[in-house]
């Protein structure tokens, strides 16, 4: 079974390589390696650093709330990047981006923090079950 799955995977990957070969240039190659590199040198240390800061500075009762709120905020910010950072956008398209994204982002982040903080304040701390 293992070998069958692996072999199918190798064949599909090779087919992808055949398709991508005529398209490869420096730009595409950079885009391919950028993900893992940016993750390893930027995102991962950033998350780890935030985790450490939270562990050091935030009172235990609020730590989970801050981590969850921070995670959701990070996801919202990532999704907003293609909407807010547009020096490479196609020609202006009035029908495409038709709401106020900076305000929308702030509202969503505000709702997330209000929700996690209220939940934490309301739920009485129970003995921690660790799994």
């Amino acid at each position, binding site marked *: 079974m293992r070998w069958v*799955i*692996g072999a*199918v*995977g*190798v*064949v*599909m*990957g*090779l087919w*992808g390589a055949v*398709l*991508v070969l005529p*398209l490869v*240039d420096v*730009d*595409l190659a950079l*885009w*391919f*390696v*950028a*993900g*893992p590199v940016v993750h*390893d040198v930027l*995102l*991962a240390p950033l*998350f*780890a650093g935030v*985790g*450490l800061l939270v562990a050091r500075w935030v009172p235990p009762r609020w*730590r*989970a709330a801050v*981590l*969850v709120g921070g*995670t*959701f905020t990070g*996801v*919202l910010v*990532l*999704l*907003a990047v293609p*909407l807010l950072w*547009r*020096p*490479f*956008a*196609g*020609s202006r*398209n009035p*029908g*495409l*981006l*038709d*709401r106020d*994204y900076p305000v*929308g*982002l702030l509202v*969503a982040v505000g709702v997330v923090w209000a929700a996690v903080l209220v939940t934490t304040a309301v739920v009485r701390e129970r003995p*921690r079950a*660790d*799994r």
Partner: protein
Amino acid sequence: MKRASSPHTATRIGLWSGVAFGLCFVTGLLSHLLQHPPGWFAWPTRPVGLYRVTQGVHVTAGVAAIPLLLAKLWTVHPKLFERPVVRSLPHALERGSIFVLLGASFFELVTGLFNAAQNYPWRFFFPPAHHAVAWIAVGSLLVHIAVKLPLMRTPAEQVRRGTLSRRGFLLTTGGAAAVAVLATAGGTVPWLRAVSVLGARSVELPVNRTAASARVSAVDDDWRLTVGARRFSRRELEALPQTTAELPIACVEGWSASARWTGVPVRDLLALAGVEPGDVRVESLERDGLYRASTLPAAHARDPSTLLALRVNGETLPLDHGYPCRLIAPSRPGVTQTKWVTRLEVVR
């Protein structure tokens, strides 16, 4: 903060991302086949919203996969920085396959997300690149599953030191995926429109390509629709028996919206012109651009609700929606719903 390996959690989150990637792969290939159909490919005309669903699933599952991928990497963090980097030939191959999996996964998610916002910080042509790398992503994912298969039965870690419990971490991951979907899916799920603050195209019936950007100016009375040897003015089209159908516009970029279209069924026009039905080439007033013409498959051309629409939601078709008339067929990608139609021609 030293963390240990956690194959149980890695499998859980891996499975979730695997499902999201699988959905993206299948729906993406369908979208490709619809736009470039080989001879053996047939696509049903019912349900009318089929493409709306498949492409909506594509973009929604893709967006959900972004937090899932990051959570997966967070789980396996200690393994990514293991030393020595390479221990043996099989180990080197495994590291290599993991690198390919990560490169291809990030490539698909990031290019897809930017493309859906019509933002292109690259020089390659998106569809073939995203398509080719999709095979690499799913191929290396299968290799990854094959390699890790023996670890999947590992029991849950006893205790995971840190702020969040194992369950808390899984819940947070699921929550992050839900937040990502809620924030963006309004472009295709109407009742989420108010909530999706990061969704593109929040209006009732969006316009992607305006007449101005297609360089189509106001159409005068000389306009005629050519079908075979027959020519119709807009007034003649209005005098023919009209059909009204509720049909969605469903864009390859994932947004979609439904509307009530009124016009003349394409099959009636072909019959009036006395041409044998078949695949129909639909040409537009647009002078250039990838989408100035499309081919309507015979099955769709035969369908009674495939219209040359003259009106939308009870009003005369606005110029930006394709005045004097546009094609609207069930279950087709938006780019093939040609606007400003001038000619219908049976090609085979």
